[in-house]
Structures are given as structure tokens and as C-alpha cells.
């Protein structure tokens, strides 16, 4: 299969997957007890008001009808109105996407060079004290959940040493970049560990291979051998892990956003669930599903480009 036809096939698969997830989300929301009318009617609802609301919101229509309407509207970029406020779902998601994307983007920009560097460094001195230090630290950090690390770091650096602000409450992220330092650091900790360990393992395999020994004998410089000959063979497994990481970051790292009070997608999801704001939950589910599909598509295509033998494989 050539690359363009592979991309086309994978894209088509994605185009089918997203609506399927949307249907799944719709029916899960249907299965919940109560509905939007009950939510809007408040704590001490009058059955008459609920009936009126149901009529006005079209909730008496059969589920298939409403699913069709919802999918058709979503296709035009309209996910309806929030139940708890005057804003539209698209508006809410758009304003929350900014902080999440900023955090995710910053994390990625730092993540890739750092984990490649650490992995190559450890592989280079395989078995040395530096290697053991890097591998045991990364294993330890990977085992620590991010909320624990987050709280620990806030306690030490923000509360006791007072070097950095502990949360993003009341400031805009861009005008006061110092509030981003701790969240980005905490977000980096676990992905750096998994990625650098994969790169290290791949580099060790590649460095032991006959083709690396061959170009070394020919006399290419160690830097060229490492980065131009060994590294391209080592990154393929790391790319799939990177895709999962991006997915995790964009999916709104709920715990991190909650700890640092960042008004991103994760916080929005938590609030929408608490308020039973179904249209917002559905909209977010669509955003997360689309991201997952797109990121994995990109990763598969990248892995394919980087390992040309895949084309010849069975």
C-alpha cells in the first residue's frame, strides 16, 4: 500500500469513528436518569414546569429524532446552548480550549527535545552511573501520580519557598507567565519518563546493530552516527507513545487544571458534570474523540514515513 492510499484509508476510518463516538455519547446521556428539563427546573421542581420545559426543548420527540437533529446541528458547528448559563456550547469550549492548548503546546515544545536528549544520553553511557541515575529517577517519577507530584511541588516551591505563584486564580495566563511554570513542569514529569525510556531502549538496540557498527568503522563522526543513523531507528516506538501523550494533554489534564485552577477544558468538563450540563458534556466528548482520532492518525502516518520497511511488510 502506498503512503497516499494508506493516509486516505486511515482518514476514512477516522471519519467513521467520530460519528460513532458521538452516537455513543448521545445514548449514554439518554441513559442517565432525569433530563435537561429536570436540571433546568431546579431543586424543587413543579411537574407542570418540567412538562412545559420538555415541550419547549423538544424532549418529547423520540430519541432517534433528537439524535438526528443533534448530529445535523453538530455538523454545522452548533452544539446547542448550555443549560446553566446564557452561553452556547461552542463558545464555552472555545474559551476553555485556549488555556489547555497553551499548556499542552508549551509542554510538547519542551517534552520532545528533553526526552530525546535524556534517552540518547542514557543510551550512550549504558550501564554507567549516569544511566542508572536517569533510568531509576525516570522509573520513580513515572510511578508517582501527577496530583501527588503537583501538590508536593506547590507545597515546596510556592508555599514554602514562595518562588512561584501556586495557582492561576485571578490572572490571565499570558500576562503572568510565571503561573505556568509549575503546571508545565508537573505535566512534563511523567511523559518525559516514558518517552526517554523508549528512546533509550531504541538507541541501545540501534547502537548494537550491524549498520551502526558499519558506519562507525567507515569513520563517520560519533555525533553523526548517533543522531543521523541510530536515532531515526529509535524514534518509531516513541512516536506512538507521543501520540498518547498529546491525546492526554489535549484531553484536558483534569487533575492538573483542577489543582492549579486553570480555566481549561478539564475544568470545564468537571463543572459541566457537576451541573449536569449535558450539551456541554456532549460537545466536549466530541472534541476529545476528534483529537484522539486526529493525533493517532498523525502518529501512524509519521511512524509509517519513518519506517519505510512497513510498506513491504505483510
Amino acid at each position, binding site marked *: 500500500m502506498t503512503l497516499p492510499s494508506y493516509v486516505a484509508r486511515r482518514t476514512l476510518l477516522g471519519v467513521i469513528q467520530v460519528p460513532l463516538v458521538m452516537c455513543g455519547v448521545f445514548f449514554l446521556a439518554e441513559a442517565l436518569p432525569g433530563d435537561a428539563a429536570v436540571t433546568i427546573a431546579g431543586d424543587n421542581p413543579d411537574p407542570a414546569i418540567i412538562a412545559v420545559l420538555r415541550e419547549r426543548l423538544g424532549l418529547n420527540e423520540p430519541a432517534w429524532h433528537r439524535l438526528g437533529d443533534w448530529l445535523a446541528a453538530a455538523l454545522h458547528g452548533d452544539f446547542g446552548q448550555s443549560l446553566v448559563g446564557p452561553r452556547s456550547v461552542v463558545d464555552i469550549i472555545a474559551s476553555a480550549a485556549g488555556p489547555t492548548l497553551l499548556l499542552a503546546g508549551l509542554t510538547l515544545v519542551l517534552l520532545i527535545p528533553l526526552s530525546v536528549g535524556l534517552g540518547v544520553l542514557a543510551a550512550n553511557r549504558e550501564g554507567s552511573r549516569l544511566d542508572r541515575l536517569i533510568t531509576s529517577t525516570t522509573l520513580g517519577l513515572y510511578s508517582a501520580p501527577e496530583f501527588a507530584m503537583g501538590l508536593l511541588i506547590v507545597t515546596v516551591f510556592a508555599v514554602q519557598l514562595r518562588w512561584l505563584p501556586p495557582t492561576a486564580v485571578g490572572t490571565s495566563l499570558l500576562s503572568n507567565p510565571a503561573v505556568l511554570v509549575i503546571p508545565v513542569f508537573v505535566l512534563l514529569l511523567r511523559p518525559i519518563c516514558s518517552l526517554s525510556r523508549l528512546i533509550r531502549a531504541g538507541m541501545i538496540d540501534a547502537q548494537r*546493530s*550491524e*549498520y*551502526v*557498527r*558499519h*558506519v562507525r*568503522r*567507515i*569513520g*563517520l563522526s560519533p555525533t*553523526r552516527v548517533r543522531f*543521523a*543513523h541510530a536515532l*531515526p*531507528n529509535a524514534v518509531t516506538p516513541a512516536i506512538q507513545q507521543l501520540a498518547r501523550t498529546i491525546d492526554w494533554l489535549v484531553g484536558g489534564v483534569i487533575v492538573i487544571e483542577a489543582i492549579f485552577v486553570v480555566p481549561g477544558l478539564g475544568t470545564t468538563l468537571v463543572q459541566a458534570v457537576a451541573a449536569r450540563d449535558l450539551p456541554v458534556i456532549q460537545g466536549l466528548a466530541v472534541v476529545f474523540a476528534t483529537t484522539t482520532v486526529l493525533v493517532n492518525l498523525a502518529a501512524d502516518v509519521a511512524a509509517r514515513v*519513518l*519506517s*519505510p*520497511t512497513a510498506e*513491504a511488510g*505483510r
Partner: protein
Amino acid sequence: MTVVDVRSLTVRVGSRDIVSDVSFSVGAGEIVALVGESGSGKTTTALALLGESPSGAQLTGQVEVAGSTVDSSNSPPAGVVGYIPQHPSAALNPVRRIGPVLREIARLHGGGSPVQQRVLDALRQAQMPDGSRFLRRYPHQLSGGQQQRVVLAHELVGQPKVLIADEPTTGQDAVIRAQLIEELRAVAGQGIAILLLTHDLELVRALADHVLVMHRGSAVESGPCLDVLGTPQHQYTIRLINAAGRNPAAPPPVLEESTPVVSVRRLVAGHRRVDTLHDISLEIRPRDRIAIVGRSGSGKTTLARCIAGLHPFRQGEILLWSTPLSPLLRRRSFSQLARIQYVFQDARASFNEFVPVLDQVARTAERLRGLPRAEARARAVDGLDRLGIAEANATRLPGSMSGGELQRAALVRATLAEPDLLICDEITSGLDTVTHADLLDVLGKLQEDTGCALMVITHDLAVVAGLAHGVLLMDDGRIVEHGRTADVVALMHEEASLGSAG
């Protein structure tokens, strides 16, 4: 002019000498062959010219290349000594295109003419006059022979004084071997000294000026090629030459009238959308020994895999004792699976590296023939013992056994299933001459004992001549020749010489 001068080279690891007191010299344009079985110290000797030694080894003696001394702290300058490793496909980076790597090496060496020009020159020297066609390809898009020439070009770009070729003919078919002989001759013609490490005596005869026979680290005999191979003095040399040229006793005749064990009728199979086997029909009778020969990519292995159920065929049918077999492995019964056994080219890859060899050998009898565990184990011990693998040895992991031992264990594993047809896919490639001859003896004996039919896939005409009754010559997915061994072998010799001339 002497380019390589080695005096009393000794390489010691612990208290053992892997190379002891070896001396030789190679002049410009001369071809010297180091001959010996695997583990005889050939590669260690050759790597000393690059200033490389096994870890923990002590080198004594004098190695001079192009007038300067080489030892572990003084490697020769980049490009002076070119080394072509045993498997050229492993020396090519799977994710880098041919052109950029060659250009990178060319830039490293500097020189007057533009980089692209030097790359194309090197490819031309390596017998690839149309080299520019290959620059944008990846290694897996080249044939085995082309890969070998690209690796040769890697070395020629640096205009080396010495070229070391380590077992260059291992696993190559007759046509590629003939081309390789031309290539190396042309390289020597340009005044480059060549050190050939090989156990292929035919190659030595065709190329070498001088021969050094190595056995357990020492040079047991050396001299001009014709003298050493023509009138060998040392006992080991005589054994080596006999092992290579031997023709075992003619196999017993086949009962022509019996029902075929396996008949293949109008078989069509392929990979993806392309058919690679077209309309294959053949019959294998009990106790038959058939050799399938042909160049790489001719469909030999695909045919064997179809028969064994490892590759689903598209059309036609395969009958086992007149019962049709399913194209899919999982639709075949255990007894059908037991009746057709397959021994793979890479014995090491066909064993799980984390399970003792004995357990894996016994498992076939247990699973395919339903024997109780203790009995299966006893039979496995017995079978391995008969092929010279002691029980103490067999309870170890595959990693601690040699390639030859594993190949024998794989044969025992297959025969424990009591097959009616045993398929052997290139099982001798990568083994040195003595091990190789042993394995053929073993195979012949096994077949006589069990009475199964044998189907051998090979590049090696010596295997064909020594073992088979009949030969199928395949080309481009078709059987192009089907006949008695002697006729087809003669025909193939002719084709190989035509192929190298063209």
C-alpha cells in the same frame, strides 16, 4: 608493494588464544583468503587490521597497514581499510535511503571531484553502472546482490588500500556468487589488496592468489592457492577439501507407482495483489527426495509455505494422501499438521529464546501426536542424543547453543511429529563446510530411518547433487525445469556462467 603485514599476531582472551601466532602479508592488488570453519579466528584476525579486538582481549604481535602500525589505540585512518561484514543487508540502515548515506561517506573523505560524481564512480566500481537509479531507494527495495554492491560502494568511496570481505557468499545464489567473483576481481585490478574470509572453497579457487588455512586460531597451512588446494599437506586442510567435494552414496530409488504423499495441482498464490506462484503442479512420492532450486525471489519458499499451510494459496489444491488440505493453517487438523513438517532457514529464530531447547523439541510430540509429557520428553532426549546433542546440553536455553546444534535440534523437533513430508528451507546456509556436511549426513540418515519424503530448498548445488533424486528449477513463480538431478545441475552451471557474463 606490501600493503598489509601481520607478524605473529596472537589474540588472547583470558587464558585462551583465539588467534595464535598468525603471520601473513597482502600486496597491492593481491587476493589472500583466510579459510576455516566458523570459530577458527578468521574474523578476529581480520578485525585486528582495523584496530578492533574482542572485549577483554590482549593483542600481541605486529600489524602494519599501508606502512603504519595498527593497534587498539591506533586505528588506521578512516577509509584506508574497508570491511564488508558477513550479511550486507544488516550493514545497511533500514530507514536511510542509499544516496544520502553514500554522499555522507563521500563528504567524509573529501577529494577533488564533486560528491555526487564520486558516489556514482564508487557505484560503477562496485559493478553498478546504473547506480543513479538506486540512490532514492531504501535498502529493502534492493535485491541481496544489489545490497552487497552498495556496501562495497560504501567502502570504495573512501578509496581504500585494503578491502576485507567476510563470508561474502553466505546465503547467496549461484548467479550472485558469480557476479561477486567479477566484482572482487575488478576491485583487485584497481590495485586494492583484498583479504577474503570464507569457508567457500569454490570462491577461494576462483579468486585467491594466496591461501591461509586456519584451524582453532592457528594457521595450519599457507601458500599459493593452487598448491594448498591442489596438494594439501595438513590433515585439517584435507578434511576441509573432502567435506566440500564429497558426494554421498546415491540415494535409493523411489517407488514410482505408489500414491503421492503430497500432490499440488495448479497452485496459484501471491502476496497482496500480485501473484508470485503461477499454476504449479507437482507430486511428491513416499521416500522421495526433491530439491527445489532457483534464484532468490523465484517463489521456492512461497511454494513450501503453501504446502505447510503457512501461506494461504488462492487457487488450485494441495492433497495429502488424496485428502485436500485447507489453505489456512488453523483449518488443518493436528494430524495433518504433524504429517507435513517444516525446518526453517534461521534455526535460532525458530526457537523461543526463553525456553530450554529440550522442552521445545518435546512439545511437538506432545501437541501434535498427543503423547504423554514424560514419553514425549524421553523421545526428544533420545532423538537429540542420536544427533549428538547430550541431554545436559539440551536442557539449556537456545542462546547457549551454536547454529549447527540448533539446526539439528530443529530437525529432531520436526521428525518427532513423524511427518510424511519434511520440508527443509535453506537449512545449510550460514554453516561452515564441515558442519554443513555433517548436517547433510544427518538429514540423509534421518530420512532413511523415518521413511518420510524430503523436500529441500537450496541455493547450494552441492546439496542438490549429494542428496536429491529429482530437482525442480523455479524461476519467476513457475517450474521451468523438472528432472533428474544430474541433468538439472549441469543446466544450472551453464545458466550461472551465462548470468555472470551478461
